[in-house]
């Protein structure tokens, strides 16, 4: 089975990567001038004797060598214990567990919308190349590509929340409501999803356009046209199908950008997900939480690549049947 081999190969490749990333995090934390014990003590640092500070340090295991700390953390990780968040005073697993769903909701919806925008826009632009709709679509995509997503988010808040008053400016629910209701949630979901999808779809759209333009020049499309197929049929049934193959791989490779976009969008819209929490963890220099979130993001990237490879086996008959890439 092709996919078993792919999964196994990816896992073999991912293990050293994850180890390197996590170890680098520990090395950076060790090299950092930041002292978590001082942060924990705050004002009390003035009145606390050095022996008590040393005891806290020993208690947290901060006095032990880097490798030993790292191995302990890895061991705990295997048993599902990610430590305790220093800023929220909660287990890291609980913090992530409460917020991961909200992030997946936004990112999932945005991904679906972005596929639609990118595919439809890119194909239209390629089909009517150099026409005014193409200029408009491509120009907008370039502008969006250059615009920082947090700025686009703020503009969207200003237009749709402040000026028009159609949608809420941020958060998960209205401040007054105690429970999450579906209509309320959906209203709060619209702006973050649209902004994230919009900002991420520009590269996708330009890629699809480039790819379809290239394929439209191929002999088999010319052949389809020569046999009298309508240009729309040649486009959708012939050109688009092969133009989309490289696109699967590139989708998988773009997960880091998606994570980046999610971090910024959650920050702008005060969305209570894991990505926005990263900022809070960073501002509070909450190492256990920050380390867990960085690991989570890296795992997401690895998973993205894996899914892309698996999707490739389904989409490309050459890989499916012959097992070659």
């Amino acid at each position, binding site marked *: 089975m092709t996919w078993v081999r792919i999964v196994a190969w990816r896992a073999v490749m991912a293990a050293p990567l994850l180890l390197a990333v996590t170890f680098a995090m520990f090395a950076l934390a060790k090299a950092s001038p930041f002292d978590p014990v001082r942060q924990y003590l705050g004002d009390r640092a003035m009145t606390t004797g050095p022996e008590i500070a040393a005891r806290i340090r020993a208690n947290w295991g901060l006095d032990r060598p880097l490798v030993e700390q790292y191995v302990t953390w890895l061991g705990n990780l295997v048993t599902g214990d990610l430590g305790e968040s220093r800023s929220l005073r909660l287990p890291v697993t609980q913090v992530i567990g409460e917020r991961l769903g909200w992030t997946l909701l936004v990112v999932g919806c945005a991904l679906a919308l972005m596929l639609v925008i990118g595919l439809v826009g890119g194909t239209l632009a390629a089909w009517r190349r150099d026409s005014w709709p193409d200029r408009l679509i491509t120009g907008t995509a370039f502008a969006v590509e250059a615009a920082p997503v947090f700025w686009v988010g703020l503009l969207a808040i200003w237009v749709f929340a402040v000026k028009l008053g159609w949608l809420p400016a941020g958060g998960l629910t209205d401040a007054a409501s105690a429970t999450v209701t579906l209509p309320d949630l959906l209203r709060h979901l619209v702006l973050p999803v649209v902004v994230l999808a919009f900002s991420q779809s520009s590269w996708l759209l330009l890629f699809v356009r480039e790819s379809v333009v290239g394929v439209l020049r191929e002999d088999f499309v010319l052949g389809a046209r020569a046999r009298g197929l309508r240009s729309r049929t040649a486009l959708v049934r012939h050109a688009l199908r092969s133009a989309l193959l490289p696109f699967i791989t590139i989708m998988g490779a773009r997960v880091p950008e998606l994570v980046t976009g999610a*971090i910024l969008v959650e920050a702008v819209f005060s969305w209570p997900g894991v990505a926005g929490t990263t900022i809070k963890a960073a501002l509070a220099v909450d190492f256990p939480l920050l380390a867990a979130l960085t690991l989570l993001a890296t795992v997401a990237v690895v998973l993205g690549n894996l899914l892309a490879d698996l999707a490739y086996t389904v989409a490309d008959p050459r890989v499916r049947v012959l097992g070659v890439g």
Partner: protein
Amino acid sequence: MAAPKTRWRARPETSGRVTGWPARRHRLALGTLAVLVAAVVLVPLFARLDQQLVDLPSSGLAPSWAHPFGTDEVGRDVLLRSIYGLRVSLLVGLTAAVAGVLIGGLVGLAAGTAGGGVDRLLMRIVDGFNALPHLLFGIFIVALFSPSAIAVIVSVAVTHWTTAARIVRSEVLSLRGRPFVDAAISGGSSRARIVRRHFLPNLAPHLLLAAVLMIPHAIWHETALSFLGLGLPAHLASLGNMINDGQRSLLAGDWWSSLFPGLLILLPTLAISALAQHLRDRSSPRHRSESAL
């Protein structure tokens, strides 16, 4: 080389002629960049910016002739601060881009020249860095090493060198097979001499292009970190800090203190990518003729 593509492959409805806009675009881009750079260099000579100034009576003024970009929540002129902010962003972006290209160039040169195990190891490291969400890594570095311009530059440079490394490596690999390199080797040149006399001059245009392309990334990165409160010190006029400040007064209807700094991120980014596109098209006639088809 494959046989040249014949004209009949072009679809009938395309004209096959470079229209006026793409041909003129790079001039517009150059003009925009010139104006921005001139503003950033000249304006500070005539108008000093007091970073700590608070002028509450004139706070939150909409754009007018006296304040073309309006004033922010503590009465600071948004236009003047934007220009100072752009100066900071361009400086940080330029430094980070040069640093990133230097790291990437060295790694790529080492991988391409040494080959074998060294090459494989270095390329694995490049893959590893590419698998990291850049902003997250930057956040991590800045959080642990107190926010400052240096931390931002380092965090951009160490996450963005991989593209340059890949470009340089593949270029070195193709240079290694050229006859003039064979001639140099059989002429008894040392490896260091070949790198210095034959590789570096041929790599220079690629390094330049990589650096130019990296500047918008670096600017974007700096503004994003500053926006999140993890970049430059908050009182300093930087584009990211200004958008962060603007976020607070946005709900009160003050759109100008976040709109204009953002436009100043957008403009140089668009101009630089148009310019890079132009440079790439010029350096590869094949790409140009194909995109004209």
